[in-house]
């Protein structure tokens, strides 16, 4: 029997194609696999949103090829109201689970967390591989819902019961499609738990000599805190999905009440509680918001520090704020249920901690802005997207103040105001963080630089486009425009159709702008200028690898020693105005 000596975690170099590129144990390959999966998911989700937007403003316009995908849901390419809800459900599910959870957390975290703490790999490489492939299976199960006879489910990404729990009586897609949805999320939960376990054990136990917790970069802290949140959140959604599957497949009545008559068919269930599903789901669902956004917060903080060439005003405060947000995220799930008929005093109990979350969020924003003020920021694609993140985080977050108050939320909850709010603060902001991370770390991941010119065009088009889409959503919501309706042609919302048209044009424009990114990604991967080992003159350990991309064991068999925190910028050293974490030099006077 022997004791392991800590940060040395071995698996030999891959020797076969399958082991190197498919069932790889290497955290870097797994990180890239997550990224690729998220890329496929985000473009699928985006196309679905295009179809929805086009249908909203031209409800009778046939959409090419859509009729081939679903003869029932889109006969002749014209979307039925039910299929509109199915598209919305699949859009939300793909984006929340397979993009916003996968890209900033699983993809970048897998690739860079071990390197940033000086480890050779994750603590449990086989679990890591299983985690990705389980996620992939979950993705396949979900997408399979498009191809089953009654199509994908229509109960939304939140799958509210009893709509989601009864079966095919409740509409097209609520048969096998909804079962596939529940099974997919069940499998996804298992994958996320495996991944979170790995992240936590890796952070706690595989840090190299000298890499104390205090010396970890903010982004590593963000991944660590996120993994703690995800561990507890997905551990609740997992049994919730199990109970939902049992209601659907085994005839139990966890979520289905008595005497429910659907489609002239009395349901053979009794006594279940639809609110129980909402409680379980939102106990996961609100922390999920922070699973998406905290890694992005870490990424942009990391990038801004490097590009400002000076530390944040207080990087420790940012870490404490992320911890505070993570803690509070478990106390606010009821604010998604203000309309569920809860006691007004209960609503107050959930409203108060929701408003409290704005305190750490505001502190972080002030630290970013205060640090940026007067700094000589290097303008590049990564730093621009980081600023874009802050802009989107603030713009989307401000509307959260209103929604946190039950009396206002009751009016706005079922309107586009909420859609605008969460798309900006959770969706687009996190995606901005992913773009920033991509432009920043691409040289390390591929050994080549991305085109900065294309990157800047991509940024400005994306920033303008996303604001053009989501700011008017707030106006629509204030005007009383309900969400989840598939068309507004015959009711009091007709005067708002021009706004919807504008949003649709903006969505098509913004989506098309992403082709610049895809072109840049593919072209630079093969034809980009060769990247120096440390093109951004950054201090953290991912820039201390012997090559780009790093070798399979990250540091070529050497074990780094860390002497500094990663915020040694604006100092005088033999390398310039920064000091690598691995440098035993003492920082000189500020030049």
């Amino acid at each position: 029997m022997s004791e392991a000596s800590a940060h040395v975690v071995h698996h030999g170099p891959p020797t076969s194609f399958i082991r190197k590129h498919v069932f790889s144990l290497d955290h870097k390959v797994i990180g890239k696999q997550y990224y690729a999966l998220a890329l496929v998911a985000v473009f699928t989700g985006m196309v679905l949103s295009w179809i929805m937007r086009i249908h909203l403003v031209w409800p009778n316009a046939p959409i090419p090829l859509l009729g081939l995908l679903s003869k029932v849901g889109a006969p002749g390419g014209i979307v039925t109201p039910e299929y509109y809800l199915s598209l919305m459900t699949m859009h939300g599910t793909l984006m929340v689970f397979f993009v916003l959870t996968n890209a900033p957390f699983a993809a970048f975290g897998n690739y860079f967390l071990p390197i940033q703490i000086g480890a050779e790999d994750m603590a449990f490489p086989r679990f890591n591989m299983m985690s990705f492939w389980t996620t992939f299976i979950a993705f396949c199960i979900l997408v399979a819902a498009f191809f089953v006879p009654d199509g994908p489910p229509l109960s939304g990404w939140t799958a509210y019961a009893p709509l989601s729990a009864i079966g095919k009586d409740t509409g097209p897609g609520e048969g096998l499609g909804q079962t596939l949805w529940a099974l997919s999320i069940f499998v996804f939960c298992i994958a996320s738990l495996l991944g979170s376990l790995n992240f936590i054990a890796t952070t706690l136990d595989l840090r190299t000599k000298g890499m104390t917790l205090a010396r970890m970069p903010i982004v590593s802290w963000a991944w660590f805190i996120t993994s703690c949140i995800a561990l507890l959140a997905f551990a609740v959604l997992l049994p919730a999905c199990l109970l939902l599957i049992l209601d659907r497949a085994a005839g139990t009545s966890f979520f289905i009440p008595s005497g429910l008559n659907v489609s002239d068919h009395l349901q053979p269930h009794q006594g279940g509680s639809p609110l129980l599903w909402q409680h379980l789901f939102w106990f996961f669902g609100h922390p999920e918001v922070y699973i998406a956004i905290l890694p992005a917060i870490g990424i942009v903080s990391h990038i801004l520090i490097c590009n400002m060439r000076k530390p944040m005003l207080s990087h420790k405060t940012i870490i404490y704020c992320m911890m505070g947000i993570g803690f509070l995220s478990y106390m606010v799930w009821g604010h998604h249920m203000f309309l569920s008929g809860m006691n007004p005093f209960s609503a107050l109990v959930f409203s108060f901690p929701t408003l409290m979350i704005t305190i750490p969020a505001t502190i972080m924003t002030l630290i970013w802005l205060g640090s940026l003020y007067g700094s000589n920021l290097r303008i590049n694609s990564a730093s621009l997207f980081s600023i874009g993140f802050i802009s989107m985080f603030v713009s989307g977050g401000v509307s959260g103040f209103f929604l946190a108050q039950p009396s206002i939320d009751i009016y706005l909850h079922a309107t586009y105001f909420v859609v605008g709010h969460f798309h900006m603060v959770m969706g687009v902001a996190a995606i901005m963080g992913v773009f920033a991370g991509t432009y920043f770390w691409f040289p390390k991941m591929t050994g080549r630089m991305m085109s900065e010119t294309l990157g800047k065009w991509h940024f400005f088009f994306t920033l303008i486009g996303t604001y053009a889409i989501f700011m008017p959503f707030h106006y629509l919501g204030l005007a009383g425009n309900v969400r989840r309706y598939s068309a507004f042609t015959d009711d009091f919302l007709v005067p708002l159709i021009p706004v919807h048209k504008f949003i649709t044009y903006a969505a098509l424009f913004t989506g098309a702008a992403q082709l610049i990114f895809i072109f840049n990604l593919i072209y630079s991967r093969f034809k980009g200028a060769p990247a120096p080992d440390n093109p951004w003159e950054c201090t953290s350990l991912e820039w201390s690898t012997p090559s780009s991309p790093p070798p399979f064991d990250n540091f070529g068999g050497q074990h780094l020693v860390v002497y500094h925190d990663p915020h040694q910028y604006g100092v005088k050293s033999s390398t310039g105005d920064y000091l690598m974490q691995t440098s035993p030099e003492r920082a000189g006077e500020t030049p």
Partner: protein
Amino acid sequence: MATTLQPPQTEAERQPRSHSGTGSGGGFHGSVPDRRSLPAVKDSSGEPTRTGIWVGLSAIAMMFAALTSALYVREGAATDWHHIVLPPILWFNTLALIASSIALEVARRRIAAFMRGQEGNRSVPMLWLQITMLLGLVFVVGQYLAWLNLRSQGLYLPTNPNSSFFYVFTGVHVLHVLGGLGGLTRVMLKFHSTTNPLRRSTLDATSYYWHFMGMLWIYLLFVLWMKL
């Protein structure tokens, strides 16, 4: 995963190599490291297997906490909650699981003694591991008999909320126990092997998991006894 033993590194081996920065150079030379004035450098490493098992157990605990809260909410949501009598074999199963934990603890101490050279015979600790396995299997079979008992009373998974929660609680728990039996099998194979020997952390992690399954079952039994 393969966390292997490495000899402790000497300080010379731990010297950092020069980093790969492409900074401007800056002309600042002569920065001879003065170890006494540098920030303290200490080893931050721990043991991932032990940490991993605790993290995993906390997730399992959270999952059963969610199921417990679901049970309480469901009970209060309607009037269809009626008491059912727990199959008596559950008490025997509980004793078997507790006994298996005791046997595993004996096995763990015997293996430690064997590794220290105080126990000359490999077969004694192996016997205790086999007893643990056997008692674990007895528990699983006993749970199956409990399900048969309920079925004979006409209580199936969808019959009423009480039986639904009984099957869910016991079913999910048995799945975890089966995972523990898999872990014990791995421990036995490694203990028997000379090429891929058993590590202390693997044994400890398996033991923590198994003991946790025992405590979890007692908790679940208490909840079921209270509510069903």
